């Protein structure tokens, strides 16, 4: 039997679809729907999670994320400028920091901030309590990543921009501040938004610092409810709560990337 190329392709594709459908059917048939609904979708539990999951848990998740992002952005920008500096020790310092903190798990850094610093400096407190500890702990790690992103952004701004600014009589610093950095940030908005999404999820590490009813975030809230009710529904709801933040952010990244692609 001899088939033409078109037919062969169609056959191959058909078989692949068939396998795909067969897998889905098998999974659907194998699942115990009543049990799944009882484990993951108990309406009474979902109702009991509101409004706390929004007013406290989600609010704190967003607060921690924004705090860590702000700290990381400011610190990361400073690091990026240090890495691009003509003064060698600045470069060394920044490089050493970036290599170190990019290599450490965020969980470990949070432990260091939450438990290491109080041991090293008794009677001193990190300003802002849990919020401050998380903003600094996650921000220290995020800054290392952001510094590299921002540096790439600055280097992506054509050299001519700086040269032109200097020719107009601007100082290096003024040219950097008013000409180069604004353009660099336009370039790095998509990767920075990705960092924001990563931080949203990392904020769940807050549990290691010890949480109170008022500082609880989404993941710990879901885990507590799982414990109290011995049911997986709270985990599902907690997962959806994250998507409420991250999906719109992903959409923003996609839009921006499209726009830049067109502008080029």
């Amino acid at each position: 039997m001899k088939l033409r190329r078109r037919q062969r392709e169609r056959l191959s594709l058909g078989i692949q679809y068939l396998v795909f459908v067969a897998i889905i059917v098998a999974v659907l048939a194998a699942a115990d729907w009543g049990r799944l609904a009882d484990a993951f979708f108990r309406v009474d539990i979902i109702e009991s999670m509101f409004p706390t999951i929004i007013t406290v848990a989600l609010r704190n998740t967003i607060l921690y994320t924004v705090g860590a992002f702000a700290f990381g952005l400011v610190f990361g920008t400073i690091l990026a400028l240090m890495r691009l500096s003509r003064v060698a020790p600045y470069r060394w310092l920044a490089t050493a920091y970036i290599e170190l903190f990019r290599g450490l798990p965020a969980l470990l850094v949070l432990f260091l901030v939450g438990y290491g610093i109080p041991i090293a400096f008794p009677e001193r407190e990190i300003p802002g309590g849990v919020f401050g500890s998380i903003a600094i702990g996650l921000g220290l790690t995020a800054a290392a990543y952001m510094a590299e992103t921002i540096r790439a952004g600055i280097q992506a701004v054509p050299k001519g921009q700086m040269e032109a600014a200097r020719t107009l009589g601007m100082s290096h610093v003024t040219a950097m501040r008013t000409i180069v950095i604004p353009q660099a940030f336009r370039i790095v908005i998509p990767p920075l938004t990705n960092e924001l999404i990563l931080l949203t999820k990392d904020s769940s590490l807050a549990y290691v610092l010890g949480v109170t009813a008022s500082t609880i975030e989404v993941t710990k809230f879901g885990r507590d409810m799982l414990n109290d009710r011995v049911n997986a529904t709270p985990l599902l709801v907690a997962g959806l709560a994250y998507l409420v933040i991250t999906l719109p952010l992903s959409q923003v990244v996609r839009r921006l990337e499209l726009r830049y692609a067109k502008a080029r």
Partner: protein
Amino acid sequence: MRVRSAVRQAGLVAAVAALALSAGCAKKDDSEVQASGVKLVEAGKLTVCTHLPYPPFQSKDASGKVTGFDVDVMDLVAKELGVEQTIIDTPFEGIKSGQDLNTGKCDAAAAGMTITAERQKVMNFSDPYFDATQAMLVKSGKTYKTLDDLRGKKVGVQAATTGRDYAKKFEAEKGLQIVEFEDLAAEQQALANGQVEAAINDLPVWSEYLKKNPGGFQVTAEFDTGEQYGFSVKKDGNPELLKKINETLAKAKQDGTYDAIYSKWIGKQPSA
């Protein structure tokens, strides 16, 4: 000939899919049913789930071996079965929700775990093997004697424990600020650092801590909650093992082994 390659390609997709499916569903099956009817998830081993560290019930010694009161008692059970005990360190949530037992991660849970009605819904408990009391630990020199003294103050508890549930009951009434820590070590550290004013946990746990850190802390209040510890096995899943545990406990209490283990880890028996 080319048709075959298309078919083969599809076959490959199917094979990979089947493999992924079976990998997702199948569990490694080394299990064993002993002559006595006791089921073990891994042959020749009594696999026990716990959450470390929780001295004196279970913690790692200098060489990294897990030791403690619960470990010694479960060793008796393992000996009775003619197998070795292996201990898996896993978050307490998985233990108390019964999931670690349901998914066959371990045969039994021994984690200084209080028998509660909630937990009895998701696993079978052995006979009680320990009377536990909750207690409040504070730094020496602090004057907190009751929960009332802690109004507006931060109180540390351990997540998913009965001590946490006890404190939560009084959170509103006594105006406590409850701070939940993931494990005992973090709770102790927070008290030592002054991040919390007092910490609530099981009395034997604090007694052990005071032994290791003399001078700095004191237990200023005990809360008799009538709690009792139990070992647990999968809900309706391993009655023979449960029977074996209960038999071993009864025997050990009778022949003095239990008392020996008790005085080794906890100290003098309370005159009951």
